């Protein structure tokens, strides 16, 4: 069952165009940075927007399989976000540990 009524087709096309523009705006932030944390936040938003895009495309094309793709993509994107956040946390902790050690060494002298 594809979208056949004229205004549903129009709404679907509108939603797809607007979502694509949103993805490009979020990608602009992904490129601009300026910090690693900004890029992770932008990547998280991009993956949510891609889930929305897949859902809208499943209405537009009448292919229900895209809904399953959206669920699977949401799962993988969540794992990716968690992994990136933990990586950032861990590298920050390591950096502060070495800074503390350097502090202590300079205090001992």
């Amino acid at each position, binding site marked *: 069952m594809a979208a056949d009524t004229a205004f549903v087709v129009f709404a679907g096309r509108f939603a797809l165009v*607007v979502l694509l523009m949103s993805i490009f*705006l979020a990608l602009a932030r992904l490129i601009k940075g300026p910090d690693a944390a900004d890029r992770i936040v932008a990547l998280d938003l991009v993956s*949510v927007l891609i889930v929305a895009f897949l859902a*809208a495309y499943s209405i537009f094309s009448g292919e229900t399989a895209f809904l399953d793709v959206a669920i699977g993509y949401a799962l993988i994107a969540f794992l990716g976000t968690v992994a990136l956040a933990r990586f*950032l946390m861990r590298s920050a902790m390591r950096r502060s540990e070495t800074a503390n050690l350097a502090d202590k060494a300079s205090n001992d002298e």
Partner: protein
Amino acid sequence: MNEIVTALLLVLGSLFSFVAALGMLRLPDTVIRMHAATKAGTLGAGLILIAVAFFYADLGITLRALAAITFLLLTAPVAAHLIGRAAYYSGIRLWKKTWIDQLKDRYHPGQTDR
């Protein structure tokens, strides 16, 4: 009837997603930008998934759409919490007009350069 609701929810959801992306581009610092990404983005995607449920009007599709929405609602706060903690700990610069930072002296071990 269902198609009117579908079209309305599609337009509304895509506009909310657009607001989220606009906020991601225009807001001043990381923590403020997370506000746009996690709330408006989840709302937009959720509205479009509800539109899918209304469009097909089928039990299996509705359940799948609801599962996707539940998953988004469960994971968005977890991911936001992890990213926010990691971002603050890694020493992001806050917006220059920020005047309350309750974590200021407690959570920055050994980071005096930023």
